[in-house]
């Protein structure tokens, strides 16, 4: 099934933010800190202001007194307030890339010329570039007594004490590197003043929330701010949050009373947009000789960067809450430590907390198996939650809700993955590979995902007399195909061709309210609302045509020329249907709300077969498979699209991408030449098996989210496959990204000291 979005994109006719030009428009460039940590003594703007074409230069002193800081959207907590970010740095900068001034000029070229002449007098301070140095340093903010800005303890059952009583124990240290979403389109905004009103093009993801926030920060009535979403080149969590620029550009447009556009460049994006993922885990697990787990304890250290942004502590809390995964842990204990450093602030990136936690847990499962010389799939099967144990709560909270796995058959998904990967014949394939001078390995990783965050979403459907339907939604589209997804649901429910359904989103003059597209909530929340609205619209049409439709109108269809209420009846024109509906006081303009009090939990398995070159440590992915249960798939192709794209990002995070800082707090991998996004030769074909074993019990379409599961299991599946290939010991491959030199090191250690595990054991 084709996507509605594609024809315009393929012609180059879709309008992205940098494609918009309005008369009189000027362009803004943000000047950013060159230091990771410094005091600002003075900023001399005179030279910059005198440069050709410059319209305005502003620093923090030009902003209204009392503005900011930017508050949290998710997971707020009172202690975090001290570390919120102001739109422009006032007297101190805390990361390379922090905005300190904005220059507006007739063109971006001229604004950049002027930026190079801005004189900033800094007094450099000692930069904090690690969790360890942060804990040993003075706090970065007044009002804080330590750079550990947040701590949460959780215990279930005996907690860590259960481990002491276990016959076997493993202690391990895991590291996940800093990396992030990196959409191919950078951010951008165009703010156009129109009298009292201000139209802002370029917001996405959480359009309605951001509009309220801007109204609050600008102290302008909500109805004076018009947000318009345009085509968006990928989001992946980081894009669409309210950043300093989301205040600065509209502020400048209002101040100057001319349209102001800002298009982020890529180097800027690396320093300015949210980073993610950097964590260290100190884990201990207790188990018995059969591989039954008895307890898990973890200290989670999160390098959150220089400020708390809109996500609050969403990523750390999700890490802690989702760490236990699909297993039945009798005891759990974890301590979450969120620490401020002089790096770019962090936020969510596709599968936040699950990419990290799944790596730790699933690598740990293979390590338990290696310790006991047991089959890692047997160890998993001995510990997986059984279908009858669901719904199951692990007692932890994420995004303000208790984590309760709603439905699923985890053991069946693992079996299916094993069959998909033809595991029964792996010994033979290993022998063949060895013959050809390569080391073959197969690795698995189970995961549970969360999706469908509430509280609610509305959908409005309007039937027009030309036989088209407009669907208004509060969701956004960052490239997923939100329009196609909603049109599919409405089309099926109404019995109407998809191309007659137009989806309207992201325009606050046309849609009243919405919570947006994030946390794999689009289909679950917005899709369910559209389903309810379509059902109600259908019910009303059947009522209006009750004479023709018979009792239920079950086989009603809506054609190009009109509605045929039943197989045997005549087609009634749309004009006539609308006329009769109006006469009966039954408007064919319906709004329905879908409310969810709990999230819904999809799940699955990643599996990976690799060849490792014993001479170089190079890893070649021979096969990659994902089994994913989405409850009910609305559009199977689009579910598969999401999984494949997620795996590619997961491969980036597992093997290539790394935001590296030096000791001075300078970002060393700040371009696409050294931050390695996997390309066509790095990402293999991916075999996706979408199952529908466990429909979501909490929504009318049975759907669970599909957006993030593709990314979350890649790192452990790869690590386990590589460890299997070279017969590495339990403690190997606990640091991401897995690089060739690490693989080579373990191969050499194995050949010097170890005896490779018996093949096929």
């Amino acid at each position, binding site marked *: 099934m084709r996507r509605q979005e594609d024809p315009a994109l393929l*012609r180059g006719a879709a309008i992205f933010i940098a494609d918009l030009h309005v008369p009189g428009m000027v362009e803004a460039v943000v000047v950013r800190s060159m230091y990771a940590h410094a005091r600002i003594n003075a900023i001399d703007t005179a030279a910059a202001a005198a440069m050709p074409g410059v319209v305005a230069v502003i620093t923090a002193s030009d902003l209204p007194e009392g503005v900011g800081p930017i508050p949290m959207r998710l997971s707020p907590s009172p202690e975090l307030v001290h570390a919120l970010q102001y739109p422009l740095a006032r007297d101190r900068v805390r990361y390379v890339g922090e905005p300190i001034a904005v220059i507006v000029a007739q063109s971006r070229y001229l604004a950049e010329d002027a930026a190079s002449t801005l004189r900033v007098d800094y007094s450099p301070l000692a930069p904090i570039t690690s969790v360890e140095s942060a804990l040993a340093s003075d706090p970065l903010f007044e009002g804080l007594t330590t750079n550990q800005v947040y701590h949460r303890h959780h215990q279930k059952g005996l907690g860590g004490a259960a481990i002491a009583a276990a016959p076997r124990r493993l202690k391990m240290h895991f590291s996940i590197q800093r990396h992030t979403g990196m959409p*191919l389109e950078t951010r951008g905004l165009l703010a156009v003043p129109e009298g009292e009103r201000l139209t802002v093009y370029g917001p996405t993801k959480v359009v309605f929330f951001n509009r309220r926030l801007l109204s609050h920060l600008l102290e302008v009535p909500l109805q004076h701010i018009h947000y318009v979403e345009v085509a968006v*080149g990928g989001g992946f969590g980081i894009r669409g949050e309210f950043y300093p620029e989301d205040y600065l550009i509209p502020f400048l447009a209002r101040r100057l009373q001319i349209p102001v556009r800002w298009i982020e460049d890529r180097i800027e994006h690396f320093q300015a947009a949210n980073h993610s993922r950097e964590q260290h885990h100190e884990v201990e697990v207790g188990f018995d000789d059969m591989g039954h787990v008895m307890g898990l304890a973890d200290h989670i250290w999160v390098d959150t960067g220089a400020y708390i942004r809109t996500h609050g502590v969403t990523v750390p809390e999700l890490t802690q809450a989702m760490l236990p995964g699909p297993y039945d842990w009798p005891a759990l204990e974890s301590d979450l430590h969120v620490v401020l450093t002089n790096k770019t602030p962090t936020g969510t990136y596709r599968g936040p907390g699950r990419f990290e936690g799944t790596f730790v847990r699933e690598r740990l499962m293979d390590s338990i198996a290696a310790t006991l010389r047991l089959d890692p799939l047997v160890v998993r099967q001995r510990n997986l939650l059984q279908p009858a144990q669901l719904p199951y709560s692990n007692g932890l909270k994420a995004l303000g809700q208790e984590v309760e796995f709603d439905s699923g058959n985890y053991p069946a998904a693992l079996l299916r993955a094993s069959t998909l990967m033809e595991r029964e014949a792996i010994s033979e394939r290993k022998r063949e590979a060895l013959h050809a001078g390569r080391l073959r390995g197969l690795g698995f990783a189970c995961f549970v995902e969360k999706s469908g965050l509430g509280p609610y979403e509305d959908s409005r459907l309007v039937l027009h007399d030309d036989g088209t339907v407009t669907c208004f939604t509060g969701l956004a589209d960052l490239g997923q195909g939100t329009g196609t997804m909603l049109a599919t649901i409405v089309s099926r429910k109404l019995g109407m061709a998809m191309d007659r359904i137009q989806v309207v989103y992201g325009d606050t003059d046309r849609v009243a309210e919405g919570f947006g597209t994030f946390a794999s909530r689009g289909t679950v929340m917005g899709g369910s609302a559209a389903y309810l609205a379509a059902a109600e619209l259908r019910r009303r049409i059947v009522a209006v045509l009750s004479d023709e439709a018979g009792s239920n109108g079950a086989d009603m269809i809506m054609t190009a020329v009109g509605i045929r209420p039943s197989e045997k009846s005549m087609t009634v024109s749309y004009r006539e249907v609308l006329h009769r509906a109006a006469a009966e006081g039954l408007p064919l303009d319906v709004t329905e709300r879908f409310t969810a009090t709990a999230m819904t939990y999809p799940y699955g398995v990643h599996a990976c077969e690799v060849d490792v070159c014993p001479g170089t440590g190079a890893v070649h992915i021979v096969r990659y498979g994902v089994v994913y249960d989405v409850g009910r798939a609305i559009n199977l192709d689009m579910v598969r*699209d999401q999984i494949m794209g997620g*795996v590619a990002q997961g491969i980036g995070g597992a093997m290539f991408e790394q935001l590296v800082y030096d000791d001075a707090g300078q970002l060393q991998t700040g371009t696409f030449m050294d931050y390695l996004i996997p390309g066509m030769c790095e990402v293999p074909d991916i075999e996706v098996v979408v199952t529908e074993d466990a429909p979501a019990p909490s929504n009318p379409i049975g759907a669970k989210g599909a957006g993030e599961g593709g990314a979350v299991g890649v790192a452990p599946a790869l690590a386990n496959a590589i460890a299997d290939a070279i017969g590495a010991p339990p403690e190997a491959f606990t640091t991401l990204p897995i690089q060739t030199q690490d693989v080579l090191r373990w191969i050499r250690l194995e050949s010097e000291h170890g005896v490779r595990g018996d093949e096929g054991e």
Partner: protein
Amino acid sequence: MLEKSMTYRASYTLLVNDQYCSVVEVEPRLLLADVLRDVLHLTGTHLGCEHGACGACTVLVDGRPVRSCLMLGVQAQNKEIQTVEGLVDPGGALSPLQEAFAEGHALQCGFCTPGMLMTAKFLLENNAHPSRLEIREALSGNLCRCTGYQNIVNAIERAANAHSAIKGSVAEG
């Protein structure tokens, strides 16, 4: 010196998608990408990195793929430039390559797509039957953050097969 560059303006003609276009009194330092996008309003060519690494801004210059973020507009005089806007047929219908992309979900956000299409066009014009590996190698300089590439490889393969099927039927007829 900057004052001077402000005052010096260049005017030139570019041949884009078989049409002569006048570029009047622009700064000579304007990149080809910015000339196409901001002067000629051909905004289908996208800028993903502006340092020649992502491939989103790829256009064909004299039939060969070029990063339009690494070439000045003035350097493109007397050359034939093709952009994504020129891929549709004169009636406005999608080309077989674009059709194959739509059919096979070879895009999600679509931001990298113009560069993918232009690079794939060059590949297919020079190798009518590329293997999957040849497709991957030919497009290895184009980054996509959404699709995982598999559907793009499939679509190019499908377009190549459709092309040879059409050719075959013409030859038989």
